[in-house]
């Protein structure tokens, strides 16, 4: 990280999460440190940047910084962009956010607009994060595994971005008094009916239980009902693989209790079942045409076997 071209005014800053970044960024901004002069470090990796001091320099005494004004929408945008997990050659998050904030503070309001060279990246990331939170709301599956205290639900989920807390808030609203645990490859969260308990990394015990529950979905008998529903509500005459995978990427199928049915249903529809909308097993049952006409409406019994 040592960079000979950096002058003595260069600084380094460390942040693990958005709030830490925000504190650092605020100080750097007040010091007037331009983005190019700051080296950002993400996470807890060890640092030995010889040209920077570990802590950003403190404020010059006697000059209270002018407050930087930033709208609530902008703050939400920046906070959510920080949830995006950067891969490969994508620009890392902290320098990007700081550059945008810097430009904003200079009066360049276009910096956060989706047509801007930086703003565009922000909005793409925000979109990806929102989408992943939505995926979690949609495709996470709970499996009932009661414990000593009674009814309890377990889920294993592999989010592509840092959206665990967004999901947890959603499920706390949704599940009311039911207790649950969500385990992910990074963190985990438990709801006891009244409070959320976050753990990073996810306790091994939670991970093991949640993964086992997901791998043995049929141990929860109600999943058989759901699978039956999934097959029956499908219209083979409208088979459309492309639209399905566009909305429900294949990476999620593995953990859906109905995921393994999809290829079978598609194959069946292609080999003949596609002529009718009716599910073939329903067609094989004994049918029953009913008597009566409009006048039957005034009679009290027909067509109703209870």
């Amino acid at each position, binding site marked *: 990280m040592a960079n000979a071209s950096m002058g003595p005014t260069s600084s380094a800053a460390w942040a693990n999460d958005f709030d830490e970044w925000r504190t650092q960024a605020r100080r750097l901004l007040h010091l007037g440190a331009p983005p190019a002069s700051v080296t950002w470090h993400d996470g807890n990796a060890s640092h030995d940047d010889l040209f920077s001091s570990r802590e950003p320099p403190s404020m010059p005494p006697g000059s209270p910084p002018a407050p930087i004004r930033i709208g609530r929408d902008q703050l939400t945008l920046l906070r959510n962009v920080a949830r995006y997990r950067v891969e490969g050659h994508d620009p890392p998050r902290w320098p990007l956010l700081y550059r945008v904030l810097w430009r904003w503070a200079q009066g360049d309001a276009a910096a956060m607009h989706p047509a801007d060279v930086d703003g565009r990246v922000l909005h793409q990331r925000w979109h990806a994060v929102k989408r992943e939170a939505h995926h979690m709301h949609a495709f*996470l599956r709970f499996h009932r595994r009661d414990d000593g205290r009674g009814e309890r639900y377990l889920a294993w989920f592999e989010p592509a971005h840092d959206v665990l807390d967004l999901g947890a808030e959603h499920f706390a*609203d949704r599940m009311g008094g039911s207790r649950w645990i969500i385990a992910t490859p990074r963190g985990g969260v438990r709801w006891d009916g009244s409070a959320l308990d976050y753990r990073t990394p996810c306790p091994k015990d939670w991970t093991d239980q949640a993964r086992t529950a997901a791998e043995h979905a049929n141990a929860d008998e109600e999943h058989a009902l759901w699978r039956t529903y999934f097959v029956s509500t499908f219209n083979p005459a409208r088979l459309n693989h492309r639209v399905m995978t566009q909305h429900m990427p294949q990476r999620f199928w593995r953990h859906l*209790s109905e995921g393994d049915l999809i290829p079978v249903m598609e194959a069946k529809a292609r080999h003949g079942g596609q002529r009718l909308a009716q599910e073939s097993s329903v067609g094989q049952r004994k*049918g029953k045409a009913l008597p009566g006409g409009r006048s039957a409406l005034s009679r009290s019994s027909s*067509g109703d076997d209870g």
Partner: protein
Amino acid sequence: MELIDKLSILADAAKYDASCASSGAPKRSSRGKAGLGSSNGMGICHSFTPDGRCVSLLKVLLTNFCLFDCQYCVNRRSSNVPRARFTPEEVVRLTLSFYRRNTISGLFLSSGIIRSSDYTMEQLIQVAKLLRETYQFRGYIHLKAIPEADPRLLEEAGRYADRLSANIELPTLTSLKTLAPEKELGTIHSAMGYMRQRIDAANDNAERDAKRLPRSANPKRMAPTYAPGGQSTQMIVGADATDDRTILQSAQHLYRDFRLKRVYYSAFSPIPERPAGLPQAAPPLLREHRLYQADFLIRGYGFQAEELLNAPGNLDLEIDPKLSWALAHRDDFPVDLNRAEPAMIARIPGIGLRSVQRLVDLRRLRRIRYQDLVALRCRLETLRPFVVTQDYRPADAQRDSTRLRQSLTQPQPAQMALW
């Protein structure tokens, strides 16, 4: 009959209803409360079946016994299909069980007509009432409104349901007479009219409450809600010869007269033991797709049905309705993005509503350049002949529409595949 067998029959019988939306409900939460379920206005698709359709709700019929003989319907009384009937408790059990496992966000319950319309409606209400009152279920509920039922029952249904729908099924009086002789357009309209009145009144009350009372005011004084997610309907496409213009005009009337939230279009799928006169062909999915696009232009972009189709006939299957309109109105183009009214920008093919808003925001900050359209991911090949920016004027602005159309359709034959 086992519950699982009933489920397979009654889900199969319900899939012809295209709607599965769970959006538009007011904010509800079960955090720290007895009961189950939440809603926040946004719909959630919990899965997609291989037909590409969203699974958001448990969509079943209470029973597929039916006294009616609507020709297009798999459940008509003369159809030789397996029959079943759920008890209200069974539907409740399935709803709660699926909901806890996060496979659905609520229930969409419909039914064949048994005994009488009132009796059928009462049964549907019974399920919703059990869910809401006995189990304190706060997830989404969509109930089918039986048009012939007593208004008193429609009133009760709206107090439990987020959404109500009475299906119009066929776009004209004539097709209804031929294919569903026991249904009456007048009755369907008056049910829709009644529901509209109640929804409007509840909304007005809610607005008044919001002005008068502080947020934390005694909840008992809050106006009673009535189907807060509005009402919708469905039209079957391709069961008879009705053209798209008639269908869209009919939809436009429904939006205006009854303030429907949505009209759903359902491409007619071949059913077992098809009655004479109904098509055996594969469902016209592309036609259905074009109707949804046109419907969206009517609801969101300020188009009239008559603008999209100025003579009897069907929508162009080859190009989308907005592009089709633009090609027929070359005099209105190209549009200068730095000057035009937002409503006119929205009429440019290849620019969606979100981009319109972003362009309007952007031009307050600086002049719009062509590169901005790239950054906003607008459909460049489509919009190129129709826009002017600070640094761009289309070279093909003068080209005639037939040739332009050719150049716009040629490079993307793959897009013509099924939606």
